[in-house]
Structures are given as C-alpha cells and as structure tokens.
C-alpha cells in the first residue's frame, strides 16, 4: 500500500566496495537470524509432519486373504488414496464442507466488513464499548462456545426453543437441514468480532484526504463506504476471506461436539472429523494420512487460486 516507510536514506558511503561487501554479509546474517526461528518452526511443525503423513499414506499395513494374525508394513503406493477417494463418507464430508464454506465465508466477510464500516462511519455511539462487545465472543474458546450453543440448541434444555414453543413455533436446530446453519451460527459468533477488528484497523489507516475528496465530490456515507473505503482495503478483505476459507476447511470442534448430541452430525461429518475417525476409531492410519494429504493439497490449491484471482483483479483494476 504505502512505500514511503521503506525509502530511508542510507548513510553516506566511505569505501564503496568494502562497505557493500560488509553490508551484504551483515544483510545475510540478519536474514539468517530473522528467518531461523520461522524456518525451524516451519520444519518442525509443518514439513516434518507432512513428510511423515505422506510416508504413512504410502507405506501401510498389508494383509493377505482374511488378514488374521497381523500384517506387515509395506509400500502400498496409492492404495490408501484410492480407498479415500472411493469412500462415500469422505466425499460427503467434502460436500458438507463446501456447503459450509459457501454459507460461512461470504457471511463472515460481509458481516465483519459491514460492522467495521458502521463503526468507522461514526454512526455507532460508544464505539469502544461496541468494539469490545463484538470482540468478546472471540475470547471464548471454540469448545466452550460450542457447549453453550449446544445447550441452546437441545430440545428440552434450551430456553430459546421453549420461548419459540410458547409462541407456538416448533423449531429444531439439530434437524436434517438446520444443523449446518446451526454450526455456521456458532462459528460466526467468534469469527465476526475478530475479523471486524482487522477491517477496522485497515479502515483507520485510510488516508483522510481521499475520504475528504470523496466528500467534496458529493459522495454520501454509503457510497463512500462501498466505492472508496472497501476497494482501498481490498487487501485485508482478500486476506480475511482466505483465512476464513482455510479455517472453514478445517472445521472440527463444533461438529465434533454436536456429534454427541444429534445423529444428523455423523462421526465423519467434516474432512477433519473423517481423518480423526479413520485414525483413532477405525485404527486405519494409512487412510487417515491419505485423507490429510488430500486436504492439505486442496487447501493449498484453493489458497493459491484465491491469491491469483485477487491479484489479477487488482492488476486489472489498475
């Protein structure tokens, strides 16, 4: 966005070649020092586990015939991958996640953006209090939030359902078609406030002269928001959208808990739940690893696609 921070003037050179070489060495040192912690963490918590998972997915237990008496670990090639891809429950997990993304990502991005624009426009009084109240749900750990929501969703316990029932409205939050929106709702509460803070921070950094120019040109509040503010903070919007997408692909906590409460959320409802179920309930580590690798590839591909698409939009906009 702004490049003026980077153009600090260098000190006047004394001996050009020596300082350049020393400078380069210093630069390399700085690079290494600054990158080392990140690289170490990347290797330890990402590359090594990914490599291990790929290994587990290619080498797995093999059996003959009925398989009694134990098997041996051999190279099984793509067998686990073929098994995962032919598993209807994995594919339906994909379906559930796709639907969840389609509902959740636009809702959370647009919702958070709308809240941030409202706060920024000064229409809301007690701005700090509002900001804190909106951010508060994010401070509640996901599992706790899910427990609270589950209480509100369960017939016989929920005061909400009771209230509706008194008005003669039967409402089933855990039904066949309502259960996904119910999960989206849980995720929204924690997601909205957090993303709103990101948008709000970006809006605060907007150059005031641009907004002034818009006002002088006769643009109203809504018009300024949609045609001036939003395009300028597009970078944040893309980032929030992408993070929400990646988070959505890894949906686990909320449905895992709801699995205990309603048969409409089965034990392989989302991709991450499928992986957990394969590894720890079906004791099939090859299958779990193959599914994990597939999820990783899909996540990377989607992130790449979103970045490329946003980049192209930006270039064509210019």
């Amino acid at each position, binding site marked *: 966005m702004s490049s003026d921070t980077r153009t600090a003037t260098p000190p006047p050179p004394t001996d050009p070649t020596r300082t350049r070489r020393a400078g380069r060495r210093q630069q390399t040192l700085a690079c290494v020092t600054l990158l080392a912690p990140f690289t170490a963490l990347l290797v330890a918590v990402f590359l090594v586990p990914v490599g291990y998972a790929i290994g587990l997915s290619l080498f797995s237990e093999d*059996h003959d015939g*009925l*398989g009694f008496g134990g*098997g041996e670990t051999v190279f099984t090639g793509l*067998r686990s991958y073929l098994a*995962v891809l*032919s*598993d209807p429950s994995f594919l339906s997990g994909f379906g559930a996640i796709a639907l969840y993304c389609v509902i959740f990502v636009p809702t959370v991005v647009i919702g958070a953006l709308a809240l941030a624009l409202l706060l920024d426009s000064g229409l809301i009084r007690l701005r700090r209090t509002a900001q804190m109240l909106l951010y508060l749900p994010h401070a509640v750990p996901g599992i706790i939030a899910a427990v609270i929501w589950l209480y509100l969703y369960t017939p016989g316990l929920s005061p909400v359902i009771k209230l509706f029932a008194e008005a003669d409205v039967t409402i089933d939050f855990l039904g066949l078609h309502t259960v996904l929106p119910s999960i989206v709702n849980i995720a929204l509460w924690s997601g909205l406030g957090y993303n709103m803070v990101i948008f709000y921070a970006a809006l605060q950094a907007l150059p005031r002269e641009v907004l002034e120019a818009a006002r002088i040109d006769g643009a109203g509040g809504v018009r300024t928001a949609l045609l001036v503010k939003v395009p300028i903070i597009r970078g944040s919007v893309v980032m929030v959208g992408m993070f929400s997408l990646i988070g959505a692909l890894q949906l686990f906590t909320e449905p895992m808990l709801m699995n205990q409460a309603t*048969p409409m959320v089965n034990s392989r409802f989302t991709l991450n739940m499928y992986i957990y179920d394969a590894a720890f309930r079906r004791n099939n580590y090859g299958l779990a690893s193959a599914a994990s690798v597939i999820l990783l590839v899909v996540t990377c591909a989607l992130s790449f696609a979103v970045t490329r698409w946003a980049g192209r939009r930006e270039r064509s906009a210019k």
Partner: protein
Amino acid sequence: MPGQRHLVPRQATSGRLVHVPGAALLMVLAMLLTACSASGGSDTVEGGPVRITFWSALRGSQEMVDEYNRTHTKIQVDFEQVPSGDQGGWAKLSNAARAGNAPDVATLEYPQLPGFAIDGVPRDITDLLPDSVRAKILPQAMDLTTFEGRTYAVPVDIEPMVFLYRKDLFTKHGIPVPKTWAEFESSARKLKEAEPASRIASLFTTGGTLAMAGLVWQAGGKWYDTSDETWRISMDDAPTRKVATYWQRLLDDDLVRVEPASSQQWRAHLRSGETAGWLAGAWAAGSMMASTPSGKGKWAIAPFPQWDPSKPSLGTQGGSTFMVTKDSKHPKEAMEFISWLVTSPDALRAKLASGISSAYPAVPDLVPVARKEMDTSYYSGQDIFGLFHKEAELIDPEWKWGPRMVSTISSGDDGLARAGAGSGTILDALREAQQKTLPDLKSLGLSVTTR
C-alpha cells in the same frame, strides 16, 4: 447397551477407602510396591509370583481379580479399569498395542475381535487354550472367536436375544405374548390401540445396528462370510431385506418408538410404560432390574419371536471375551488366569457379588451358579436362566462379525437415525454402512468381495 452394564461405581469404592485410614495406608503401600516393581524393569521377582496385567471395562472385574489374587500365589494380577469400548476403551487398547505396552489380558466384545485380530493385537491361543476349557464352552460362542481354525479369544458370556415386556399391560388388555414375528406385529397394533401412548418396542438409533445384526443373524443372514478365504460382505442379503422390510413397516405404521438405546429418554419411557418391550441379549434382564427398580413385578421375559416356530433360530446381542495379547511376556500364566475367569464358579460368584448381572455364562456348567445367585422376584420369580439356557441352544453358529465393526456400527447407527427421522429407509442405512466400510477394508489390503 452393552456399555451400560460396564458402568462401574468407582467413586463409591474410592470414597469408601478414604474413610478407612488403614485401607488408605495399604493403598499407598500397594502403589509404592507397584512403582518399585515397575522401575525395577522386570515384572517377575526371583522366586516370587508372576505378575500379569489385566484391562477390562466389565463390571465386577476388580472383585474377580481380588478373589483370584486371594486364592492364588504363583500368579498375581494387576487390574486396571478401562473405559468401555465406545467410550474410548478400544482406542486405548489399540494405541497401547501400537506403542508396545498392551496388558497381558484384555476384554473384547465379539464384534470387535476380528478387527483386533487383523491388527495383530490378540495372540493366537489355539495351542494355549486347554482342551478341558474349550470343551466346557458353548460351541457357538467358540465359533465367534475362531477364524480360519485359529482361536483368538475365550468367550466369557454369550447373550441369546430375548423379549422383555410389560406383563401387566399385556395381561390387562388381553394382548398375547408373541411367539412369531407375525404375532409380534399384531400384538404391536393391539397395544397401540389399547394404550395409544405405548409402543411394543424401540427401533434403536444409537446401538440399533448391533440390535439389527442380532435380528438378521436370527433370520439366517450373513453380513460377513469368510468361507472362501475372502471377506464376502452383504448387508442387504435376502434375510436382511426381510428383516429390514418388516421393521420398516413397524416404523412407517408408528408401531415402534424411535430412540437411542441406553439414553435417558429411552429409560424414562421404560419406566413410564410408553415403551413396553425391549428386544435384547440376556444381560438386559439384570440391566432392567438395576435401572428401572419401579418396574418390579411388572416385567416378564419371553422367548424371542421366531420367523418359523418349527425351525427356531436365534442371534445374540452383547457378550464379551478375554484375550491374551501378542506382546504378553507371560502367555501361559495369562491363559491360566483367563481359564479361571471363564470356568471357575468362584470367579462368577465374585462378579455377581459386585452387582446384579444376568449375563449368560458361555460355560453352561456355570448356569446353576448364576441361577442360584440371582433373585428373580423382579420377574415374579420367573426362571429366567432356564429360559436363557433353552434360547442359547438355538443360537445360529454361522454368523461372523466383520473386520471393522466400529466403523460399520457407527455408520449404520447414523443411517438408522435418519431413517427414524423419515429420511431414507432401514435398508438404505445398512447398505450405506456397507459402502462406508468397504474403503477401510480395501485400504488394509484385505481380500473383499460383495455379493
């Protein structure tokens, strides 16, 4: 369902210990001792007894172990209470086996045994199991723990299915106790007519696949067939379709109540009479006494309804086995302990002293012991063990469980829940369970075909 009888009143036990300083001191000493033996690196003290470890979720296990340790000197057993299978017990056991610290002896239920055997957790005990013990066990139970002629576990109880029903309601309205499935349906209609709030039985969602398996088993179905050295899977064979269509009709005509087994909701219905019957393994008799004390004198147990009374047949629901693990350093001693657990009247008495149990022993010789210990006034003095004994003879020996039943059961239960909510059918649920099980078996490299 079976999980229910595994609930152990642990808190009560430890709570009692706290109040007795002597016992607390002993416990500390015992802990110190086990800590010492563990840090010693060897579990055999020179000249001392062989120590073996035992994991179980079965109620009464601690009492049985105490009795064993009291009466035996050469082998001493360290017992650890583990969660019941679906509460994490299976995962705990397979993870321990993966990590190489599985116990010497562990409890498995019949449906889970093939899966564990394929994963190489239990030891092949064909040559270890004394013939004298083998001969005492009901052959149908032995068949369920034997694959390709090799035995992997020793049955402790086998649970023929029976029909528990509210005798008072049936008598009051002159409803006949059904002997066949056709009569079961007409009795169901009569009951609903006479008591509009009441239903003859439940179609279970959670726990429903195992109950359905027992029904299919009786009808002569074979979800898994291993006769050709390959897993032939068919969860929609002709007998399964017959059973599923029958239950679908009961469901569609609102003659059975849809509810999860072992749930609060279901128990409340049993108490109120809104659910007036229960189709389950023999163990259910004891479970009913413990969980529904107010039903005393109201309930009775009938033989399971038959498809063809001239050719009676039966399936089971529930039941457990003991296995020696492959990693065990003392397989012989482990086997000795298991033989005692399964065949000794002392073991059974110790178990029954810990609480009500109507589990039907896999060793028929023990039935008189169980019968003597059981106070059947709840069932108006009915000779329930005599009934179980007759029913156990009818168990069809052809049934085999599959290699990944945990997965099959949970998928089937999900489908049954949807069928109960009006989306899809019972048969769809079973077909889907098969579809969702196949990838697991294929990825294990097993030879699999569907018929």
